């Protein structure tokens, strides 16, 4: 191809131009995110069905969750989305130092989220609220006084809570791995003004995981925020 005598760094031979390569990458990533929407969508559907079936159990179960910790994690993720957007911006300007800085801050915020999540899970398990183990343990009913008739519905809520936040946390762990890879690549000077698609594509993934949390936070944590058990609600 005489037209392409000048080889562009990072351009695969089967694409006509950098622009076309980038567009193909973006669309490929969006198709993947669509499959992710359906992946999480099944759980959101389960949530809708069981919440409609057990409204009282969901209020009670939601009330057991820690809103300050969940809210803190929401803020952590929002800030991390901003820093990720900044990283994408600086990758397109070819400013390596700022790119690495913002990728690193995003990674740290992602890890902060996971640490907070760990302590939340731990306190739930300690309180006998992990649904696979011992919700029926007399000790748990003593500590939390889940009324007998609500134990099964609360158990359903807790299953959905652990499944949805667990699947989300797995995505966060994958995201952290992606960020570490990007930081190493950026430090080796792989990204330039012309070639930076991996950063932008990873950004799409990170923002998607943030959006999932934007829905999980009100649906799981805030649903029972106004609820007072035994308050005749």
């Amino acid at each position, binding site marked *: 191809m005489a037209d392409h005598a000048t080889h562009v760094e990072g351009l695969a031979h089967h694409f006509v131009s950098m622009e076309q390569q980038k567009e193909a990458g973006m*669309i490929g990533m969006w198709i993947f995110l669509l499959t992710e929407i359906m992946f999480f969508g099944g759980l959101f559907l389960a949530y*809708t*069905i069981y919440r*409609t079936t057990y409204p009282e159990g969901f209020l009670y179960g939601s009330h057991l969750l820690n809103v300050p910790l969940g809210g803190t994690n929401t803020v952590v993720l929002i800030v991390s*989305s*901003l820093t990720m957007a900044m990283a994408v911006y600086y990758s397109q300007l070819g400013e390596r130092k700022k790119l690495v800085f913002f990728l690193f801050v995003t990674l740290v915020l992602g890890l902060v989220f996971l640490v907070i999540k760990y302590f939340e899970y731990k306190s739930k398990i300690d309180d006998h609220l992990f649904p696979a183990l011992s919700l029926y343990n007399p000790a748990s009913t003593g500590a939390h006084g889940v009324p007998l008739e609500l134990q*099964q519905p609360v158990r359903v809520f807790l299953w959905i809570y652990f499944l949805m936040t667990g699947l989300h946390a797995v995505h966060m762990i994958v995201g952290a791995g992606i960020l570490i890879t990007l930081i190493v690549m950026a430090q080796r000077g792989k990204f330039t003004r012309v070639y930076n698609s991996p950063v932008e594509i990873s*950004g799409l993934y990170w923002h998607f995981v943030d959006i999932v949390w934007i829905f999980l936070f009100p649906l799981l944590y805030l*649903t029972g925020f*106004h609820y007072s058990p035994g308050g005749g609600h």
Partner: protein
Amino acid sequence: MADHSHEHPANPIKYYIGVFLLLMVFTALTVFVAKFDLEHYWGPLNIIVALTIAVIKATAVVLIFMHVRWSSRLTQVIVVAGVFWLFILLAFTMSDYWSRGGWPTKLGQ
């Protein structure tokens, strides 16, 4: 609209800060509103308010942080198709439950 109108702005940082502030304010708002028992006035009011706020937040992230506002038409169509497909999943399943006039047998009751 010609493809060139989708060019990124030269300096998108002010958009990013704007979305960031919107996300923070709406997070505070959704926590604040959740404190009140709006179900006292109308059954689904709490969840409607919460989901409306969540949809606004998600839309802002998709349009600005994920650059869909400046993306090609093809990308925009793909995004809308994804949301629409999720709507089909939820709406058709729920309409099936409702039209059968009943819910799954309640556990342990």
